[in-house]
């Protein structure tokens, strides 16, 4: 609470935006599936940080509730997503995201 008092919400939103941008950049530019996965986590947490900031600024508990939802969904996503990734990496240890195009139309 002390820190929040001294640093304005712009700083938090700024950090959130930077984290999100890093996540987007990583997702679009990297090919390693694990790294891309981590980037998604980064974006989710950037959103969480923005939620918390607005919840505090607007004095609305709704933002914090949303964060819990995001955390739960992210956990579920990690369970499923990592399971799929591990399965893929077992069969093709050196696969990149661009190699996985069996759903091509």
């Amino acid at each position, binding site marked *: 609470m002390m820190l929040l008092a001294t640093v304005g919400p712009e700083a938090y939103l700024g950090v959130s935006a930077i984290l999100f941008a890093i996540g*987007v950049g990583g*997702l*679009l530019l990297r*090919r390693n599936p694990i790294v*891309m996965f981590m980037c998604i986590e980064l974006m989710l947490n950037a959103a969480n940080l923005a939620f918390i900031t607005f919840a505090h600024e607007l004095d609305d508990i709704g933002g914090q509730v949303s964060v819990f939802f995001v955390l739960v969904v992210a956990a579920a996503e990690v369970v499923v997503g990592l399971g799929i990734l591990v399965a893929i990496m077992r069969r093709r240890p050196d696969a990149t*995201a*661009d190699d*996985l*195009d*069996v*759903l*091509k*139309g």
Partner: protein
Amino acid sequence: MTIDPTLMTTVVTAAQSTPTLVHAVWLIPALPIAAFVLLIACGRRLGEPFAGWVAVAGMAGAFVASVLTWIGLRQMPGDERAFEQNLFTWIGAGTFHVDLGFLVDPLSVTMSLFVTFVATVIFIYSIGYMKGDPDFSKFFVYLSFFAFSMLILVNGSSLLVTFLGWEGVGAASWFLIGFWFQDDANASAGKKAFITNRVGDWGFLVAMFFTFLAFGTFNYTEIFAHVSPVASTTVSAIVIFLFLGAIGKSAQLPLYMWLPDAMAGPTPVSALMHAATMVTAGVYLLVRVNPLIAASDPWVGTTIAIVGGLTALFAATVAIAQRDIKKVLAYSTVSQLGYMVMAVGSGAYVAGIFHMVTHAFFKALLFLGAGAVIRGMNSEQDMTWYGKLWKFFPITGATFIVAWLAIAGIPPFSGFWSKGDILGMAWHKSPVLWAIGALTALLTAYYMTREVVLIFFGRRRWTELEPTAVDAEAHDEHPTVDANGNPLPTGPGAPHHVEHGAPVQPTEAPAVMTIPLVVLAVGATVLGILNLPFGDRFKVLEHWLEPSVHLGESTWHIPAATQWGLEIVVVVLSLIGIAGGYYVYQRLTTTRDEQLRYEPEILLNSWYYDLGISAFMGGPVRRASQWLATTFEWLVIDGAVAGTGRLLSVGADRARRVQTGHVRNYAFGLTAGAALLLIFVLYRASF
């Protein structure tokens, strides 16, 4: 003998619950259909002649029911003479419903009376005429079905019920024209009649669609009660399309050509359907909807009258050159129907109905007489091979002469009075129409005299043999057994070859055929009393029909001097026609070749109208259809269908390339979309 016991109890209860006899109306069509069902079930077992008598009983019962209905209607006060009987809801869909019901009013009762009477007489005649035909009982099945349909048509309480009967008589017509279908020409004639009538039926259907749009109902009473708020243009359209239906059914120009071909049917069929009753259905329909005609634009009535007048004249000219005994009468029927249509178009509904009734008698008589002659002459139908048959056919000849005088319009026979009424009313509409009608009367007298002289007087030509070579050749074309080795039917008029001039012993018809002739002859003589022009008191039919035709000729006043002057002129013209016919065929010519000089080729071929239609339909129309069926169908219709498929196939092939399968492409798409949304939101927020 055809009445089911349960039906009888129903009648009794109906009669007990209401005081009037008009409730018997449902029996009028019910008895012929009962005979129909009975004959279908066991007609062959009943055999000859009992199957015929079953049909006669059904028909006579219908006549009795008509009389009862008539008496019932007479018990009602003069201006309230209309009664509707609804048997059951035929079609019910939400707010729309059509009852299977009957409308009893002076018009429908008049029709029922004469239709059932003439039909009964012709049914009796048929027992004699169809003797020996292998399909004897089937003939009466069809006849009963026809009678049922005709009576539904006449008594129907709505356009749709009338249409039911209308199509029923069309189907019966097809059955009966092609009754001897072993001969290809007969089957084709049936098809021609049916298909030509479809053109008219299309008009009837369109008229019903318009009626439903404008009135929301098909019921006659409801329609007539709501005529005034409807635009006269709409009413005109309805009437014109109904008139198209009437043109088809009543064989008017330009759809008349099926009727002469319909003579391929057995002669009683020609008499009953294609002269006395069925073909008058078109005229009846127009009279039925006379409040609509009154509410339509003036050009509608004028058009109807002109079509009728032209048809009358056209057919009369063609009739003077026909050689087939029945073809003359067929064209004569077309001509007389033209008179009736002209009367309706002139607004003279009573005169039209009057002529319909008298014509039914004398034309049925002419046809039945012709049938008796054909039967007695071993199926010969070409009048040029008759001659001087008077002493062989005393009864047929005498009754035929009565009918001849009636149709020629010689007083006091019935045709004179009804034709006089029509021509008087036509004069009231326009002297030009009268002139057409008067000229037709002259031609009518001429061609009927020609027919009478060719059959009964002149020189005996039926003993003059044809060259034998022709006979031998003709024999080969007409085997007496069919493809399966079964003998072909040999009834009178059955499809077997006629040897012109072959030795024949002319024989007068049996009593079962001549008694109907005498009955009809009495009717043809005296029926003029229905509507005599001697003053208001004698116009029985006009007063009787007044509740049905409010706006008819009873409101007109034609000076007696004019009326009688016109009558005299027409009689003089008719006498000139008779004298001309007598002079040409009795005095001037004796041999076949001489007579042919007075029968122009162009008239024999009905002004080449029929051939023209055939050439047109078989030539340009057929080629155009061929082009449509092959080129147009292939390129445009199939092209459009196949093109749609190709478009989808090619388009989908292009579109699927978007789906790369690379997850980073999709991610880029998502990001770009989100970025665009963000820009949009920011852009909106900045205002």
